[in-house]
């Protein structure tokens, strides 16, 4: 079939904000998408079908079954195949005016500068905090605009970082919001999410790229937009340049390797199977620290102390009991266990490993 770009992009060029001029800017643009998962896959497809002329996709990973609920451009038959490769082939099937290529290797400190140097706009669709900083810092060093997106459960974050103003200065970047890579964030396991917020954040990133390239609308610069899918609430945090941050030095001195969860002290932990053996004993005292006191718990609970109001000072220890503290994921229960052990060192107390979720 003979498909003309006039016909393909008719519904865009009819917009006075875009026109043929805007369409040509898109055609000439070179965009790099790093990460081809929940964010990266719609980003790549929507950018290509918008008419971005050159697109390069990067992801080291292969498709897994638990990706499919939110990475909707992969099909069941794609499981175990390269994400970047499959996504590039999906782009080809629907975007005849886009030149698409891919890299199926991880981005590292050694490769990042070379990788981004040939592109006009960098889009971050990765799911690793340290790689997000690596990309941010590299964009600052090479003066590239970065379209940032990320999420946790129902909260999605979006921003356009390091955009060059007319006076030559650059807008805020990730380190103006979060100066250092937070280590020790309590929950390192994948938190889970529903697919709409992932798609919404991806499309807000696409929207930034199109606005930036076609010089239309107002970019999300010097701010961080947060969208919450449970309440449809939008929050915009205004940012300010932090002059005490020297990214060139940081880049030189960092290795950008993953940081890991705090390791929990094994002597304060009880596994689900061990707990099963003692849970019905009279000497066992189960303490729930769930905030929702009416949550269904699959075993008997003797005390409910919502974490929100927990205070070690108020606790009356019974030294004849063996305490097991439980919560959903084993994070807040561990925290309570630590505090009680600190205050009452003679107490026999354990946190249920990985919480009710793993019971």
């Amino acid at each position, binding site marked *: 079939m003979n498909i003309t770009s006039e016909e393909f992009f008719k519904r865009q060029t009819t917009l006075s904000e875009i026109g043929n001029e805007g369409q040509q800017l898109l055609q000439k643009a070179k965009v790099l998408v790093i990460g081809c998962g929940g964010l990266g896959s719609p980003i790549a497809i929507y950018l290509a079908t918008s008419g971005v002329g050159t697109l390069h996709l990067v992801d080291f990973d292969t498709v897994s079954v638990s990706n499919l609920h939110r990475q909707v451009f992969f099909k069941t038959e794609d499981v175990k195949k390269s994400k970047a490769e499959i996504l590039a082939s999906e782009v080809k099937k629907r975007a005849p005016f886009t030149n698409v290529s891919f890299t199926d290797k991880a981005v590292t400190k050694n490769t990042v500068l070379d990788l981004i140097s040939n592109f006009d706009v960098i889009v971050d669709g990765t799911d690793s905090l340290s790689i997000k900083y690596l990309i941010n810092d590299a964009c600052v060093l090479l003066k590239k605009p970065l379209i940032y997106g*990320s999420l946790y459960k129902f909260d999605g974050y979006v921003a356009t970082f390091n955009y060059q103003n007319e006076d030559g200065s650059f807008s805020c970047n990730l380190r103006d919001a*979060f100066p250092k890579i937070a280590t020790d964030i309590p929950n390192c396991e994948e938190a889970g999410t529903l697919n709409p917020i992932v798609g919404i954040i991806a499309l807000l990133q696409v929207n930034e790229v199109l606005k930036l390239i076609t010089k239309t609308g107002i970019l999300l610069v010097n701010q961080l937009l947060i969208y919450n899918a449970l309440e449809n609430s939008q929050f*915009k945090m205004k940012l300010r340049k932090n002059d005490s941050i020297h990214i060139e030095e940081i880049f030189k001195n960092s290795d950008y390797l993953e940081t890991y969860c705090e390791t929990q002290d094994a002597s304060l932990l009880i596994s689900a199977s061990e707990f099963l053996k003692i849970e019905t004993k009279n000497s066992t005292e189960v303490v729930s620290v769930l*905030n929702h006191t009416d949550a269904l718990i699959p075993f008997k609970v003797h005390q409910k102390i919502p974490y929100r109001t927990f205070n070690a000072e108020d606790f009356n220890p019974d030294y004849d009991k063996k305490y097991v503290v439980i919560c959903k994921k084993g994070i807040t229960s561990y925290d309570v266990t630590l505090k009680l052990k600190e205050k009452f060192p003679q107490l026999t107390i354990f946190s249920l490993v990985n919480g009710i979720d793993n019971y």
Partner: protein
Amino acid sequence: MEIQLLFFGITTDIVGVNKMKYTLKEGATVGNLKKLLIAKYSALKNINDFAIAINEEYVKDTTIITKNDIVAIIPPVSGG
């Protein structure tokens, strides 16, 4: 004085709600508030790596909080 706290990302899980009223001494700074929150919710111990916004504007630890301010606790997120 009373202020409003908003929580985002992991802090919603730690605190169990995404907003709450909170009472604070007159003249308290963002730094003071952080310490009070860590004391109450020890899992917020990384709060110094989080962004704090007052009335949607990023603030430093030295900023003084005033009555009815909306103070948002914004941790980094990493999902993609």
